[in-house]
């Protein structure tokens, strides 16, 4: 809970696009409390838990990023999205076959686990730390699959200008609300988006009837979210089927088991190096490494060597992950998209 002021600061700068981080102290407080409770609870089936992760620079003690997981999208209610569909209108008699793009309001993603709240301090964007911030969640899921659904989804912000005008909202939602989207969201008082969704058009939207700029916005990512989006695509998330019902941004989805980090991760026993880089042989490579504690979960990126069922890491790394020799970790290769192996630890 001591992280609240830092997260509040992040919420303030990330206001546009990351709706899961409301710039409101009380709501953030509730969110953190709920997260603390989720981590410490025994969970057999994913329910209303939310898990909130922060990226801490251990050198400064500063919190420089956030990420989260909602265990069950739309829990207690529905999770709305638009599903991209193609309707074929064909007539043999007239020798015509037309493919019509339509958006169907659906609840398909209800109950999936949602990756949310990704934010990283711009100073860290061009490092490997965004990889850790996003993918550490997957290592946690690998260790505690019963806490999550076997399918994941993640909403990504759609196109809008600096004032928050979204061409998709203007063509669709606005007709039913007569207000700007940020205003509508504010009105809903930070309650679940379901509240607003129920006021949205329930019948399919025929895309050709929308203005060109709204059509172009369907499935288009807001440039601000390129980094987290690309990490998810690299993991194997698919972006073609669902879009956000408000701004048309792409909602990605995937089976947990097919993701790169899940497939590449292993449960290994910790071996400590003598504390110098020299002990790492040529097989040393950067890994995402996480402890397997449900409540005191820690993950970092570290140089490591895998030897059969053991992982060789530096003592400082082990210490930062609250590990001693013989403990188990989850580790997955950082992969080609990662940057040079880091010197320090987090």
């Amino acid at each position, binding site marked *: 809970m001591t992280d609240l002021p830092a997260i509040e600061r992040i919420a303030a700068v990330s206001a546009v696009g990351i709706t899961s981080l409301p710039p409101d102290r009380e709501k953030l407080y509730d969110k953190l409390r709920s997260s603390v409770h989720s981590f410490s609870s025994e969970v057999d089936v994913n329910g209303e838990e939310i898990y909130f992760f922060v990226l801490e620079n251990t050198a400064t003690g500063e919190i420089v990023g956030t990420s989260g997981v909602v265990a069950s999208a739309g829990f207690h209610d529905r999770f709305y999205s638009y599903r991209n569909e193609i309707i074929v209108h064909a007539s043999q008699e*007239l020798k015509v076959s037309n493919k019509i793009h339509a958006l169907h309001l659906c609840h398909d993603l209800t109950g999936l686990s949602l990756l949310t709240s990704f934010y990283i301090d711009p100073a860290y964007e061009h490092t490997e730390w965004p990889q850790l911030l996003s993918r550490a969640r997957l290592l946690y899921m690998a260790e505690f699959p019963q806490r999550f659904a076997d399918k994941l989804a993640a909403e990504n912000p759609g196109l809008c200008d600096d004032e928050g005008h979204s061409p998709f909202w203007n063509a669709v939602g606005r007709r*039913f*609300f007569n207000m700007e989207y940020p205003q509508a969201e504010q009105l809903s008082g930070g309650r679940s988006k379901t509240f607003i969704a129920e*006021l949205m058009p329930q*019948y399919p*939207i025929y895309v050709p*009837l929308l203005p060109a700029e709204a059509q172009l916005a369907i499935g288009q990512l807001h440039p601000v979210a390129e980094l987290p989006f690309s990490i998810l695509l690299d993991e194997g998330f698919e972006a073609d089927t669902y879009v956000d019902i408000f701004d048309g941004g792409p909602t990605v989805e995937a089976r947990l088991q097919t993701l790169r980090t899940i497939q590449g991760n292993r449960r290994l026993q910790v071996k400590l190096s003598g504390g110098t880089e020299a002990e790492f042989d040529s097989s040393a490579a950067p890994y995402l490494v996480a402890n397997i504690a449900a409540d005191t979960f820690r993950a970092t990126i570290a140089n490591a060597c895998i030897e059969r069922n053991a992982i060789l890491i530096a003592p400082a790394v082990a210490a930062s992950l609250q590990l001693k020799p013989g403990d188990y970790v989850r580790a997955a290769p950082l992969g080609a998209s990662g940057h040079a192996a880091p010197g320090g630890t987090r």
Partner: protein
Amino acid sequence: MMIIRPIAAADIGALFQLALHAGVGLTTLPANEELLQARIDASLASFAGTSERAEQIFVFVLEDTASHKIVGICAIAAAVGLRQPWYSYRVGQVVHASQELGIFTQTPTLFLSNDHTGQSELCSLFLDPNYRQGKNGSLLSKCRFLFIAQFRERFSKKIIAELRGVSDAEGKSPFWESLGRHFFSMEFKDADYLTGIGKKSFVAELMPKHPLYSSFLTPAAQAVIGQTHELTKPALSMLESEGFRFEGHVDIFDAGPAVECDVEDIDAVAKSRLYKVAMAVPTTAPHAKGPTVDKAGIHYLVANTWLTHFRVMLVRGEPAGETFPLSAEDAQALGVNAGDNVRVVTLSPKDRVAG
């Protein structure tokens, strides 16, 4: 003398000429000989009672008895949509409201419907432009009400009529441009032609099946939903004066209105009544005794009561008790003799008294 009669096999040539006269772009009378022949055959079978209700169409022509020229056509389909689906959009609305958020929006919608399936339709009206004068148009259109009144069991409880929607001089329909065109890369007039040759349901099957929010259409398209083409407004007024009302169904291509009315509420049907024919004594005859025809009287639609030899004409006169005096020529044209039944109603609803 102008008289209405069922179309006959021999009318094919004259009908084709009439269709050519109508020119391109008239849905109801395409200049297609094969199609016209099929329509005549269907009508003959309907009058002869040899076809099923789903196929029945009663086609009438307006004949100038002086020249034996066919100058107009009209028809009643007994039951639409029983062979090919009959589509229309039902204009509706959805309300999205939240007291908590202070939101209340009414959004107009269009629901694709087959609501008119099985209902009888007034259709195929066309009058030679050279004859668009006097009461010819009214006679041609309203003659059908006397037929329906006389042969009610052949028609549904409700009668419908579709009216042409708004399109410009080049045949462009704002509604089609905003909706149909996206689903069917075709000009409105081509779609309209397909409608005329009985292929409307093929086109309809390419149209959107899900409900539409009208607010997603262009303002020009939204403005013409349920609106009648300028040239068709007199026809709309005529139907309205007989009790027809727009009940929220529009054409799926041009959004022109469909109007409807229960048979017993059609004024001309409800107020028509049977009289016995009385032969009028010519007023020119010296010392004439007996009923006369008031040449300055009100216009009446007078029909005989035969099915296959059905005739309707306009007569000026006045009923006398239970009889209706007819001149010898009129009686002959109608094929009736003194004492035969005729069904009669004033041409104008204003002249009618409750029956």
